[in-house]
């Protein structure tokens, strides 16, 4: 627990807002299905139990058109993410589930910093952002229990109300985003869970998603 606290404090407070070096992340990006890595995870006994109990036919919140966990949102391939940067906000529009994320830019050392959330998606918590040199840092807390991922071998990795999520977004080069997501959740994981994803720039435009829960649920032949 102490190790995790020290890690979290280090991750959050090594940052100094550096507006002058703010990276230009603006534009449209798309996951090419290529480079996604989950560092080895170490579940607690409770986390292991929740992971094993996951049932993809009924537990996936996306079956109700609901996003859970920013890792899950970023992991959706072949849908556009549009990033717009303002002086006091950053806006990330995810085509998947039409998630429109407007996050205030804050002073990370200030207490009670303003945070943004997504109505109807409590698993995505409340986020605040700042710049740490050439990296956009997004800190998310107050997350409702759910799943970090519902895909591939990571399907069912749990998240608890204790989870804190830190996204660090930077440019690997002018046409490639590096996204590192760290989930700190002592209820489910003995160490922070770290996910790395790369997003190439795209010329595709953002499209409406229009998910309808009736269509998103698991359908069987009649």
């Amino acid at each position, binding site marked *: 627990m102490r190790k995790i606290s020290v890690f979290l404090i280090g991750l959050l407070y090594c940052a100094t807002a550096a507006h002058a070096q703010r990276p230009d992340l603006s534009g449209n990006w*798309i*996951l*090419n*299905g*290529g480079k996604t890595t989950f560092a080895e995870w170490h579940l607690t006994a409770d986390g292991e139990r929740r992971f094993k109990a996951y049932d*993809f*036919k009924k537990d*996936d919140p*996306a079956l109700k*058109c609901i996003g859970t966990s920013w890792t899950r949102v970023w*992991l*959706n*391939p*072949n*849908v556009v993410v549009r990033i717009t940067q303002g002086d006091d906000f950053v806006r990330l529009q995810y*085509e*998947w*589930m039409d998630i429109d994320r407007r996050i205030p830019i804050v002073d990370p050392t200030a207490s009670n910093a303003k945070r943004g959330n997504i109505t109807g998606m409590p698993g995505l918590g409340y986020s605040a952002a700042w710049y740490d040199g050439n990296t956009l840092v997004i800190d998310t807390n107050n997350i409702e229990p759910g799943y970090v991922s*519902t*895909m*591939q*071998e990571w*399907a069912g990795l749990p998240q608890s109300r204790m989870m804190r999520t830190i996204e660090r977004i930077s440019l690997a080069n002018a*046409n490639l985003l590096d996204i590192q997501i760290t989930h700190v959740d002592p209820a489910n994981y003995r160490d922070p869970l770290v996910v790395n994803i790369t997003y*190439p*720039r*795209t*010329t*595709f435009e953002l*499209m409406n*998603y*229009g*998910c*309808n829960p009736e*269509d*998103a649920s*698991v*359908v*069987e*032949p*009649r």
Partner: protein
Amino acid sequence: MAAILKMHRWLSLVSLLAIAAPAFAHHSVPVNFDQSKDITITGTLTEAKWINPHSRFRLDVKQDDGTTVEWLVEMGAVNTMRRAGFDIDKFVIGDTVTISGWPGRDRNRTMLLRTAVLKDGTRLTP
């Protein structure tokens, strides 16, 4: 200008490669479908829903004993399929279609479309 055009072409290529990657994410391919098995069915198209997060067909498939059963064929998001140039207008209700793909896990008569062959022989891959 030439450099900009070259960059634009490069980005288009990257985007197309992205689309070519497995497109079915909401239900997660390996979680929901058995990629070690290939199956093919032929039947009459009774429903085509071009939607997000995944499109789907219903097909009436005649069995060896003469009875007809329904199959559910799932696909990627319609946004993804449109971007990939998958010609959704070619699918007409009532037409005979042959579908190849991976069978569903623990779900009878379901599959993920990998290739569709229309009645005129046109072969479409999302």
